[in-house]
């Protein structure tokens, strides 16, 4: 909300610098967002002395002036007739932006150079006279800014108000806070109504059919008004806080809105059917055209102001086109009401209308202030539009807002705040913002907040008042005393930490991508029709189509990241993401959230350096990463097997493996299929892994037992086999494991070879066995004997033969 300092000064004496004031208000909870020089727009408008006016012929309406603007004499073409040589006038220099929005440029008019514009009062928004150029006082010096020359100074204070402080949505509301801070009295405007004529009851009536939605409705009628422009002071006030001016009657309602925070509405009394007001809810589906010319469809829970025939205004939000004040209006009905905040908010939300009026009703206006604002508006209309008042006022108040009485314990206040305030201190702070305070006993206070403080309903609200008025900086900083209770972090958190370290150790950069992705991401990944990941969670109001559904896989994020980096020529990527995916369950349940860990490696295994040539990443690099991570997490029994089923259609068949622990499948690793890469606009080979982190965690063992180390030396023996290509390495290793030879410490595959001289359909595998005993040094013959036994068994089992030396 914007507040003009000079307007504020109408109600409170301010003798401190505006910057200090702004800081004090911020520290009292009314955050000042900015201070703006009201007359900044006059920065490029300077005092000019007319040195010469070139004579003009009858036919011409423009004449060429030469104007001294302090640092030189400039030519200006001007059409005004009220100026003469020697006059001091405001001259807008090139670059100046006038309140009309026009930007002054140097140019040529009628073949003459013109380097600015001489301005009227109206053009500078300094008055209403547009008949001629504004003549400045003799004392003004050419070149001086016009604002300085006219001693114009005002600051617009911009507030970022919190939604609880509806009482501060007015100049007087802010002035009240200023008065409390500066400890100075608040001056309310004096309202004095001229005597009325025709009793209002003879002219009109108000019926509230929906008292829950409209607890109070007051009205006055002003007759014999002359609609016309408002006086300059009123226009200036409205302009200062960013409001437009319409005509004297409407401007008065806006002025009172800003001054007191009570939204008002002025109806053309003669356009109200039967000259009466009925407040009731609308009929479902009814059409209504608001002031802004938009036809709106009403709902049955929307509160309408109606005349004898039908709706004339959306209660508390916007008037109707049919009853607005027009130039020929002579009689005005002023509405000042208290509408239910929830009713107002629901309607405003549903219609997408947010007005100065609805903003205040939603937050709650002062139910008692309704009358004061009505009288203030009536008085100003009588003064400014030459109107006569109808005698009396209609004030229907079927649901009086009850007085709130709060019992406040000073002890509890001190306990919550950590202060040692006396009962008197607490009382004084509350009284400074117009709360009614009476001591009940030694500890307690009976507090009645004023009706405009709709935010104060319970003792804690009062404690907050005390704290902010004392100043948060005055509350001592202490440290809580509490029992030492240390819980071990959740296993998941511990595993996550370990995983981060392991993947970083493998050279992977962590990425974080948005949880929402494109709706067609599942198609891009070629997911099967029945794939559970197609059960996506949709966002009703997404920002863009690229962020329309919650992700059910981390791969789209990894691939989009690869794409974005490829555009930056970052072609070698090793990235991973650890995050949740979301699967739709039923409409009445939250989606299932599963934490996944996925990685992507594309480009180089080693980049080209002076040491070595570039080599490209392959399947076994990525498998190595998964193995390292599983080993690092101490997961036993991890196995890799060819893909089965349809869960991984995005991996290239024959170039990918599923990752299992026992019979449980945790994910897969492999090369991304070319089609999927193309779907994401990519054409560089990439490998990925995709694991269910939640299930991985279950298999992580945090137990560590060391093995004893043998004191005796190890001996190795190699075995070079030729066997069928279709036999998997895992089968060989499993077989040897199953043989259970205690002296075999380990078996490693050190060579794989196909091609001549190995026959077609066969491969050669080189195995290295390590033998060691815990009891003694093994002799060659002992080792040879075991090795020969194993060799025989293996040859038999796998129909293999030994590769000739």
């Amino acid at each position: 909300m914007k507040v003009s300092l000079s307007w504020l000064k109408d109600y409170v004496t301010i003798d401190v610098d505006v910057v200090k004031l702004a800081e004090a208000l911020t520290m009292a909870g009314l955050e000042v967002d900015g201070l703006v020089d009201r007359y900044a727009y006059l920065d490029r408008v300077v005092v000019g002395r007319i040195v010469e006016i070139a004579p003009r012929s009858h036919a011409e309406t423009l004449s060429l002036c030469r104007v001294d603007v302090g640092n030189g004499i400039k030519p200006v073409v001007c059409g005004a007739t009220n100026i003469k040589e020697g006059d001091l006038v405001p001259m807008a220099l090139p670059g100046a932006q006038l309140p009309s929005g026009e930007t002054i440029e140097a140019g040529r008019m009628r073949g003459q150079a013109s380097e600015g514009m001489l301005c009227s009062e109206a053009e500078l928004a300094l008055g209403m006279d547009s008949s001629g150029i504004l003549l400045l006082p003799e004392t003004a010096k050419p070149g001086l800014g016009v604002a300085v020359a006219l001693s114009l100074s005002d600051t617009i204070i911009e507030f970022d108000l919190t939604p609880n402080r509806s009482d501060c949505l007015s100049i007087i509301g802010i002035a009240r806070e200023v008065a409390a801070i500066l400890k100075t009295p608040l001056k309310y405007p004096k309202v004095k109504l001229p005597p009325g004529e025709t009793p209002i009851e003879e002219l009109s009536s108000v019926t509230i059919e929906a008292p829950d939605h409209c607890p109070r409705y007051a009205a006055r009628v002003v007759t014999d008004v002359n609609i016309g422009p408002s006086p300059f002071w009123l226009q200036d006030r409205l302009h200062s806080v960013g409001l437009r001016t319409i005509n004297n009657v409407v401007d008065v309602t806006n002025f009172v809105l800003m001054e007191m925070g009570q939204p008002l509405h002025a109806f053309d009394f003669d356009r109200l059917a039967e000259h009466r007001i009925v407040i009731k809810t609308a009929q479902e589906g009814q059409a209504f055209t608001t002031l802004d010319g938009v036809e709106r469809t009403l709902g049955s829970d929307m509160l309408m102001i109606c005349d004898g025939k039908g709706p004339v205004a959306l209660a508390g939000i916007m008037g109707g086109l049919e009853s607005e004040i027009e130039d020929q209006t002579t009689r005005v009905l002023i509405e000042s009401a208290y509408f239910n905040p929830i009713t107002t908010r629901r309607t405003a939300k549903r219609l997408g209308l947010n007005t100065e009026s609805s903003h205040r009703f939603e937050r709650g206006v002062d139910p008692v202030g309704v009358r004061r604002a009505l009288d203030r508006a009536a008085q100003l209309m009588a003064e400014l539009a030459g109107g006569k008042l109808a005698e009396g006022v209609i004030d229907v108040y079927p649901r009086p807002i009850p007085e709130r009485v709060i019992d406040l314990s000073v002890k509890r206040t001190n306990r919550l705040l950590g202060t040692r305030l006396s009962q008197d201190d607490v009382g004084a702070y509350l009284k400074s913002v117009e709360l009614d305070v009476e001591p009940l006993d030694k500890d307690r206070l009976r507090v009645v907040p004023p009706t405009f403080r709709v935010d104060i309903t319970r003792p804690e609200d009062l404690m907050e008042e005390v704290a902010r008025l004392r100043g948060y900086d005055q509350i001592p900083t202490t440290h809580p005393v509490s029992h030492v209770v240390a819980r071990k972090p959740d296993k998941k958190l511990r595993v996550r930490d370990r995983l981060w370290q392991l993947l970083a150790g493998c050279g992977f950069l962590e990425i974080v991508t948005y949880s929402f992705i494109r709706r067609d991401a599942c198609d891009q990944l070629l997911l099967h029709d029945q794939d559970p990941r197609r059960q996506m969670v949709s966002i009703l109001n997404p920002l863009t189509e690229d962020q329309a559904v919650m992700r059910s896989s981390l791969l789209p994020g990894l691939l989009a990241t690869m794409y974005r980096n490829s555009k930056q020529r970052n072609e070698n990527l090793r990235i991973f993401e650890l995050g949740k995916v979301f699967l739709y369950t039923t409409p009445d349940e939250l989606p299932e959230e599963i934490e996944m860990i996925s990685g992507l490696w594309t480009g180089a295994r080693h980049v080209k350096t002076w040491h070595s040539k570039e080599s490209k990443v392959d399947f076994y690099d990525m498998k190595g990463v998964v193995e390292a991570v599983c080993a690092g997490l101490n997961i036993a029994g991890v196995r890799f097997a060819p893909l089965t089923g349809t869960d991984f259609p995005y991996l290239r068949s024959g170039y990918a493996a599923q990752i299992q622990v026992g019979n449980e499948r945790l994910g897969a690793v492999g090369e991304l299929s070319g089609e999927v890469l193309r779907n994401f606009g990519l054409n560089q080979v990439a490998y990925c892994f995709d694991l269910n982190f939640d299930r991985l965690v279950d298999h992580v063992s945090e137990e560590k037992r060391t093995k004893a180390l043998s004191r005796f030396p190890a001996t190795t023996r190699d075995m070079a086999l030729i066997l069928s290509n279709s036999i998997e390495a895992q089968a060989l290793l499993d077989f040897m494991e199953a043989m259970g030879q205690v002296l075999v410490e380990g078996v490693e595959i050190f060579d794989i070879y196909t091609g001549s001289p190995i026959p077609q359909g066969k491969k050669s595998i080189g195995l290295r066995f390590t033998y060691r005993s815990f009891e003694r040094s093994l002799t060659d013959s002992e080792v040879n004997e075991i090795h020969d036994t194993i060799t025989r068994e293996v040859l038999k089992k796998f129909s293999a033969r030994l590769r000739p030396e």
Partner: protein
Amino acid sequence: MKQELERVEQEALEAIKGVSDPTGVKTLKARYVGRKGVVTALLRKISGLPPEERPETGRLANELKKRLEKAFEKALQAFEADRGELMADALDVTLPGRPLARGRMHPITQMTKAICEVFQRLGFEIVEGPDVEWDYYNFEALNIPRDHPARDMHDTFYISENIVLRTHTSPIQIRVMESQSPPVRIIAPGKSYRVDSDISHTPMFFQVEGLMVQENISFGDLKGVLTTFAHQIFDEETSLRFRPSFFPFTEPSAEIDIRCVICRGAGCRVCSHTGWLEVLGAGMVHPAVFEMVGYDTDRYTGFAFGMGIERIAMLKYGIEDIRKFYENDLRFLEQF
């Protein structure tokens, strides 16, 4: 003779100090320990000494010769090292080493951990909750009823009428309080979502929410804990400013500014020339929230606070555009 030896040694060592190039060292070396050098000449004189002195003097002279030779060698090496002269078989140690791929955690992960660790040291426990949340936990239980203007503070993504993407990690407070009785000391990091996208907002962002509830927790304690936090995350010189504000689930509520870490309060673009940076929201838990979870409001008080992790990371790392965090450009990630 013995004195003569000592004098020669002194003289030679002095002379070495005064030499400015290797040639000088070589000349000196020849003068003292060369075939026609001073020490050699002395050695020759030994034969002319009385026999009983000869062994001792001979030993001393030989030792002197060795010492001087070493000193000359050292001086020569020093010159070579200074001039960076390479020995024929030496490595070019300035060539880059063989690169090892170095992975990193995302800056937001790093910042989240750093923040959580401060509170863990203070005995807070990390707790998490769902990203897709009931409207009840995200709003209603936090004293933000439907149709309350405070909902305007949260531009919400909806999944259905009753399910939202959480707009803060505060619903975790409620979930924890529903499941345990005081004392409570938790810190809840996680993703949050709001319908917003510009240079300082992303539709998804990270928050850390904290909650401490027990008997006799005061606003002063809140100030103490958050001051400790700011001092550990920024530095001990960081001053804080607590300002009244409004959050429906706390009362009194505060916004906490720190002295601008860029200009130290002098006023700069980052702090919009105010000298202060808003980094935290906090307050004493609203009794309506305690009532909602069934805590005894006569007995317990507590405080809650929340902060945006990106905001703190941006200040610490000098990042101007929040969107950089989620673009995941390699050149950005590799800086952390």
